């Protein structure tokens, strides 16, 4: 069948419409979804979270420290929290302060010797293992190391199931 004038015009209208949509969609999608350039190359270094030599062994302690964060077009200094458990003179665990279920801030319940989340009653062991509730995996941990008496914290590592 030969292409009549009308069909030809309809095809061209459709093709041009599709081409222009694609030409706009490609930069728009990369603009919205691509990771900002410096954030994808910059690695956060270790942050000094202070002297924790007075924290008793095997007892969770909330440690508040300052860190800087690249936040869009700003670099903001902010306060951040870690739940720290000293296992020995140079051995330490630092838990990220959010429940792995939906991100609520949990707290240490000393009477039960467990972390409890106020939102949906998940509870965790001092090492961060799930004891009960809907939390899908253990608490996330900061990379942590001791330099003398000072706790150094790195990035948060996502825990395995």
């Amino acid at each position: 069948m030969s292409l009549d004038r009308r069909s030809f015009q309809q095809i061209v209208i459709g093709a041009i419409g599709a081409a222009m949509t694609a030409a706009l969609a490609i930069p728009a999608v990369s603009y919205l979804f691509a990771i900002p350039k410096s954030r994808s190359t910059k690695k956060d270094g270790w942050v000094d979270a202070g002297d924790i030599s007075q924290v008793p062994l095997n007892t969770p302690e909330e440690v508040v420290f300052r860190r800087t964060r690249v936040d869009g077009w700003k670099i903001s200094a902010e306060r951040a929290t870690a739940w720290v458990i000293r296992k020995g003179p140079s051995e330490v665990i630092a838990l990220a302060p959010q429940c792995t279920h939906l991100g609520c801030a949990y707290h240490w319940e000393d009477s039960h010797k467990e972390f409890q989340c106020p939102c949906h009653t998940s509870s965790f062991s001092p090492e961060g293992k799930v004891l009960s509730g809907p939390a899908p995996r253990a608490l996330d941990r900061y990379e942590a190391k001791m330099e003398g008496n000072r706790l150094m914290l790195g990035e948060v590592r996502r825990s395995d199931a």
Partner: protein
Amino acid sequence: MSNGTGKRHPVIEWLEDRTGLPGLVEDFLMEDIPASSGWHQVFGSIALFSFLIQMVTGILLSFNYAPTPGEAWNSVRYIMTELTGGPMIRGLHHWGASIMIVVVVLHMVQVFIWGAYKKPREGTWILGVILLMLTLAYGLTGYLLPWDNRAYWGTVVATQIGASIPGAGPWITRLLAAENGIGVATFARFYSIHVLVLPPVTMLLIGLHVFLVRKHGVAPAPVETAPKKKFYPGQVFKDTIAIFITFCILFALAVTMRVPLERMADPTDTTYIPRPDWYFMFLFQMLKFFHGPLELVGSVILPNLAIVALILTPFIDRSALKAPSKRTLAIGVVFLAGLTWGGLTLAAIRSTPPSEAVDVTLIKGPEAWQSLTPIELAGAGFYKRENCAQCHSGAAGPNRLGPDLLTRAKGKTAAQLIEHFRNPSAKVPGSQMPPVHLTGGEMNGLAAFVLKLTPANAALLDSVPAYAMEGAMVYQKNQCGACHMVNGVGQKMGPALNGLSERRNRDWIQEHFVNPQKLSPGTNMPPYKFAPKDLDRITTWLLAIPASGVQ
């Protein structure tokens, strides 16, 4: 969409029963238009399309834009330097504004020459004039939003013109919160007008405008001989082709002409020469012809007279419809207006000195390595090439095999260091460091680099890009510093190379290496035949040397 056979897809049929939408679309597309309709009537559709582009790109920009002074500039910088596609989206919005003004004016010129504003289409024309004003209002308010020097100083002039209007001046100034100069409230109001006030008003008026076009029908020729035809697909096809051509121009502009972001707005900058965007240049120029009490004539009276004349056009010209080729007066008016506008704009451009403002988005941050001298940069290159970092750390940090160079190199001279590089165990008994095999010049560079290390700049080692190190190595090897100066080091026989990128482009530099006499007749510079890789590295580095030595 109906293909004329009258049989609809069941889904379309379902939608029709529930909403009536397919029928509406069909009525719209199957509108009868005069047989004389054609290419000259595509501009309205392009104008609508331009508006849609501005809407989409404007919304996208707002996703990463902070509408407060200071923050605004930072967020635009972020869009331009950090976001993939950011310069493209901003480019589309910036150039789209210019395109929209061009298209709206072309649309108006076509309607004017064809006399399509005549009874009963006066209302359509007046709405069109208002839409032209709204388009200019977008340009005026959007100009401030990047909050760079260009934005700030351009808006200072614009608000001062508004303030000079007798009677209304103080009210306008107060409405724009510009009584004490351009401030946070001025900015908020410009932003609000640009994104909250103008778009809904524009959409409403476009709707009315199109409604009136449909009500009165597309303007016919004085004599229509052939029967009417359908809007779709014939005219839609022409509109689509015209839109596509416009889109291609816009796309090409956005890709090739990077929209600059100048330094952040600085009210104390006394050297900045404000200039409006090109479409306001003629007004800017006209103000130069009127002084003292007459200034109002140029700034307020003439522009407003022009607007009034535009609005009254259909009531002034009430003669019978004629073919455009016979409308000599209308063509003459357009020609004269175009000539006046063009002359004023040209005069403005010629009398305004070229902008010396710098596009800050092209400066890759305050990078410390850019302040290093060529010999130090080359030294960093040797440091890397000789794998010094395997055993030495620049800063105090995790201990490595060798001593950290910050503390160890302190107080040493370059000669002592070089002696140690050549024969490590002679200076430091028991040292496990292997001797470094470099030429004398290379040794100097390495020593200069090690001596330059401070706690603050120890991170330099990681931040110096490879092209800078390799480029500087080529530079040192060929003793370019015997004639040229970089960051204050070298001789002055040839031109200093700081800020070369503002004077020359890549091709020029590369051709100049090969044949200096051709591009700089009478120069003392001998030709250099570098290997392609060396040529690439040294050119890239030369172009990266900042205009003034970074501190």
